């Protein structure tokens, strides 16, 4: 055995190990943390999901075996492809079942033709809430029922249920497995359930709402009519016969117990021992629920790992079907569970290989995107590639795994994605290897497949069709950092990155491991922001074009702004406009409403704007601001006055309380420095608040009384003077102009105003000493600022919609639906009509017309030559 063969194997294990951990983490996370009242139903659910994964595994085994038999050459490869989790299926096919604008009538029309359990998620015009419209059984009088979805600040839940979820997809995925408050579990259309590959799903999802009338749907309907249970039983029966005799080669490695030395023995092998007990605990629960499932043991690759002591071999899981619950579970999970991993290979093998040809590591998110985009040619190519690999013997696998390992080494980042992807790569290598020859025990699989299942949920979150961004590797390298960035400045992180080269090997990998684990806890908010940031770098989307063009425009055209404030204003305006566009457009996939409760959408969009616009522009903006000040001489003046003010005693500045000592001033100065490194105005303001809090603490500690503005403002002036940082002036401008207008009235706005006031006093220190008054000029600028900032409201103005048209579509049967369409400035009405007809799927476009309705006056647009703006 060559050493090359050992490596992939170790990687494999780590891969599955991570998957396990992620799976359990997410499972536990979702079921325990999000469960508001862990009651009976909760247990049931856990059981449910466990049962489901068991059922899945069993089925995947079965199907794979069948395929193995049917085509000897295939060696189970095709079946690998079928490993797509419910959540993935849901995410990818949301254009089918997520119909937020669908009317009651339309929904009834569609659902009436469906099997019980088929559902559509939409927004009820009556309730003004999202609802699940569910097809009930025929024996019940009303065949369709709506279940309202409750949106709290951070979660989604069904009304009447105590279980809440981070986003809509997770909610639906859960109710596909467990019924909780529903009469039975949700059921995905057969075409989605049986889809074997990403491409299949994409085909389905392309149809959108048309899917329900399509041939694809109707073809599959026949097969859906066959009572799934019957098939199930026979399959299970057959399966049971097979299990003991023929352990199958599909799936992933099981978990091994390892000595600490083993844990540290390779790049990808380190660290996660702290999660191991967690796994065991969960696993034991599973054992209790599922019957006799025990800890798995490895057979296949053990030859290469003699040093490892395999745990005792477990008996195969006994699959009983004691309850109706399981029937439901099967109903849902049956077809999709023919879970194998070819799809993963398509996704990650290909790039992995192409990687090995290049020397530079490609950041994983992009990789993934490029693939999942799967312009058919590309995907074919990668399939071909991976097929080739498979045909050859073990050597290429070693290459793959080594490459992935290298990726990890080279990229040297505390980046969750890298870890995940590397794991993914290694996992792939493993599959290949197993396909090649090794057989695996059922018990091994039952764990590992289920875990990969849930892991996929997190990992493949950026859905297909999500754009690649080849042209943005620097930002991309930059990008994910800030996901972990809370208060830590980007610069600092950069440093960390470089110093991590010095860190011992093991420590590094441990960091990565940990970050990988935590990434599964990433909130929908963070995922959404990340997603928007990704789209913003993709020039194939309208949004990406807007953002990228603006960024390069601003960077290349310094001369187009007359002052720093002017520049900041246009940036703020741009952000507000783009935000409004995003909220209205359908370019985000999945739609933001499915991940973020409605009240929070604006907040999330604002954060995303900071990330995709301010982050790349921060350096440029700062340089420009300073340049402007230097040009008109105010920088020099500011420095002089600051120096002057620094000489003053607290009393001379009007302070009537205990002033902070030099140590405290140093501490505050440090905080100001940290503030400078932030790109987000909100985070800067947060730090400013902390500084103010510090000042209050000093004041109050020494007197015990409360201080109002009479005392605080002079004190703040004193502190700013003592810090002696002229750059603070730029910071304050940056915050004042770029902060979300809705925050300006709050506490942040107040202290920002105070800081501005303090800075103004210092700036005009000499004059102020003479006249004891601020110059009238400052007064004027203040006035202007207020006028400006109060006119830019959160409410979108007409200007914001120059490029979009809100079109309401009225139908006699289904009422009114509205969409925002992107309209080029000089589009003709005919073109708009065409666009509308297309977007609303109007059957006879000629019988509809556009009319403009403004302030209750409706005027038709029959002959209007062009739409101006």
């Amino acid at each position, binding site marked *: 055995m060559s050493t090359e063969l050992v490596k992939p194997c170790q990687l494999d294990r780590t891969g599955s190990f991570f998957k396990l951990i992620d799976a359990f983490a997410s499972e536990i996370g979702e079921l325990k943390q999000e469960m508001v009242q862990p009651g009976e139903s909760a247990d049931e659910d856990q059981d449910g999901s466990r049962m489901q994964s068991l059922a899945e595994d069993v089925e995947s085994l079965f199907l794979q075996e069948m395929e193995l038999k049917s085509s000897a050459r295939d060696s189970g490869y095709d079946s690998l492809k079928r490993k797509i989790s419910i959540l993935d299926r849901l995410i990818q096919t949301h254009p089918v079942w997520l119909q937020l604008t669908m009317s009651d009538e339309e929904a009834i029309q569609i659902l009436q033709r469906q099997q019980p359990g088929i559902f559509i998620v939409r927004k009820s015009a009556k309730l003004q809430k999202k609802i699940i419209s569910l097809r009930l059984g025929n024996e019940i009088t009303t065949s369709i029922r709506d279940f309202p979805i409750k949106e709290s600040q951070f979660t989604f839940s069904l009304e009447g249920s105590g279980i809440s979820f981070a986003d809509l997809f997770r909610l639906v995925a859960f109710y596909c497995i467990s019924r909780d408050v529903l009469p039975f579990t949700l059921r995905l259309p057969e075409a989605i359930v049986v889809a074997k590959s990403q491409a299949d799903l994409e085909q389905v999802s392309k149809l959108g709402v048309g899917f329900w009338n399509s041939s694809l749907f109707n073809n599959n309907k026949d097969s859906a009519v066959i009572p799934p249970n019957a098939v199930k039983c026979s399959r299970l029966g057959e399966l049971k016969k097979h299990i003991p005799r023929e352990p199958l080669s599909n799936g992933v490695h099981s978990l091994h117990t390892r000595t600490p030395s083993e844990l540290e023995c390779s790049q990808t092998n380190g660290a996660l021992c702290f999660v191991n007990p967690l796994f065991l605990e969960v696993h034991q629960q599973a054992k209790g629920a599922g019957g006799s499932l025990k800890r798995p043991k490895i057979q296949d690759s053990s030859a290469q790992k003699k040093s490892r002591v395999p745990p005792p071999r477990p008996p195969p899981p006994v699959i009983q079907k004691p309850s109706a619950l399981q029937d439901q579970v099967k109903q849902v999970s049956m077809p999709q569970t023919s879970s194998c991993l070819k799809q993963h290979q398509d996704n990650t093998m290909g790039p992995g290989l192409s990687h090995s040809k290049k020397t530079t590591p490609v950041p994983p998110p992009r990789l993934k995107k490029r693939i999942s985009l799967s312009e058919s040619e590309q995907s074919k190519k990668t399939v071909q590639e991976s097929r080739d690999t498979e045909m050859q013997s073990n050597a290429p696998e070693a290459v793959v795994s080594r490459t992935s390992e290298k990726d990890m080494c080279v990229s040297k980042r505390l980046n969750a994605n890298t870890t995940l992807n590397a794991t993914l790569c290694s996992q792939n290598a493993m599959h290949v290897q197993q396909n090649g020859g090794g057989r695996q025990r059922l018990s091994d699989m039952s764990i590992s497949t289920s875990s990969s299942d849930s892991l996929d949920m997190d990992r493949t979150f950026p859905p297909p069709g999500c754009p690649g961004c080849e042209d943005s590797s620097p930002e991309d390298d930059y990008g994910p950092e800030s996901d972990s960035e809370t208060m830590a400045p980007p610069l600092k992180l950069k440093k960390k990155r470089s110093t991590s080269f010095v860190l011992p090997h093991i420590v590094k990998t441990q960091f990565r491991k940990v970050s990988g684990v935590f990434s599964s806890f990433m909130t929908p908010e963070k995922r959404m922001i990340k997603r928007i940031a990704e789209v913003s770098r993709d020039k194939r989307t309208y949004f990406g074009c807007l953002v990228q063009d603006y960024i390069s425009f601003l960077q290349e055209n310094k001369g187009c702004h007359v002052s720093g404030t002017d520049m900041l204003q246009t940036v703020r305006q741009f952000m507000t406009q783009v935000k409004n566009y995003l909220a209205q457009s359908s370019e985000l996939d999945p739609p933001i409403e499915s991940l973020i409760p409605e009240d929070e959408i604006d907040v999330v969009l604002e954060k995303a704007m900071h990330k995709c616009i301010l982050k790349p522009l921060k350096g440029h903006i700062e340089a420009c601001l300073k340049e402007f000040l230097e040009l008109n001489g105010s920088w020099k003046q500011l420095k002089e006055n600051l120096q002057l003010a620094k000489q003053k005693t607290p009393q001379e500045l009007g302070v009537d309380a205990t002033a902070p000592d030099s140590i405290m001033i140093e501490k505050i100065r440090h905080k100001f420095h940290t503030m400078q490194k932030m790109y987000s105005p909100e985070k800067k303001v947060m730090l400013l608040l902390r500084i103010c809090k510090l000042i209050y603490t000093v004041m109050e500690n020494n007197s015990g009384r409360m201080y109002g*503005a009479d005392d*605080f403002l002079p004190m703040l002036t004193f502190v700013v003077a003592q810090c002696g940082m002229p750059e603070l002036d730029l910071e304050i401008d940056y915050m004042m102009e770029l902060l979300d207008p809705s925050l300006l009235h709050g*506490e942040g706005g107040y202290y920002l105003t105070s800081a501005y006031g303090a800075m103004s006093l210092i700036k005009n220190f000499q004059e102020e000493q003479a006249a004891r008054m601020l110059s009238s000029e400052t007064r004027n600028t203040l006035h202007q600022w207020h006028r400006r900032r109060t006119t830019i409201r959160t409410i979108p103005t007409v200007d914001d919609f120059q490029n979009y048209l809100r079109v*309401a579509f009225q139908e006699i049967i289904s009422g009114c639906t509205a969409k925002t369409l992107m309209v080029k400035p000089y589009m003709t009405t005919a073109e708009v009509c065409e666009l509308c007809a297309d977007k609303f799927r109007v059957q006879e476009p000629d019988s509809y017309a556009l009319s403009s309705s403004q302030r209750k006056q409706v005027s038709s647009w029959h002959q209007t030559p062009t739409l101006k703006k």
Partner: protein
Amino acid sequence: MAIRELKVCLLGDTGVGKSSVVCRFVQDHFDHNISPTIGASFLTKTVPCGKELHKFLIWDTAGQERFHSLAPMYYRGSAAAVIVYDITKMDTFQTLKKWVKELKEHGPEDIVVAIAGNKSDLSDIREVPVKEAKEYAESISAIFIETSARNAVNIEELFQKISRQIPPLDPQEYEKTDAFKLTRPPPTSSKRCC
């Protein structure tokens, strides 16, 4: 109930007890409606008013003369301004008049102005007669009340009066109609589109 955020600006000479009035208002009745703020210059309190909840965002200003020019930053966008004077000091009442004048000239158009004569517990050394202040307030159609932050007199009432003066949000119906509709043209019109 919808929470409506109202910015309230606090004006008045230094030493008249601006902060004391607000501190008394915010801190007297500890209930769930108080969200903690970092210091006493900016305080918030939520009070019910009719069908709405009013969350007062109270912006304190520095009363010293040299900070006077900063005031526009504080009172801009305010729904209400509370101008406080000290009933024992006539010159604070004169300052108040200057503030009223400034607000009329530069303040938000429909700002609710409230005049609070603080330190009513010291009425034996009063310099500003109630009558004079009241008449002045009426002449500018402002709310008038004498308060004592020390004895917690009329503090609650002051803010209740302001709350009542805030016009309720009238629902804007433009959104529904301010859109282009794609509708079937009336049957009489030609079937041609565009």
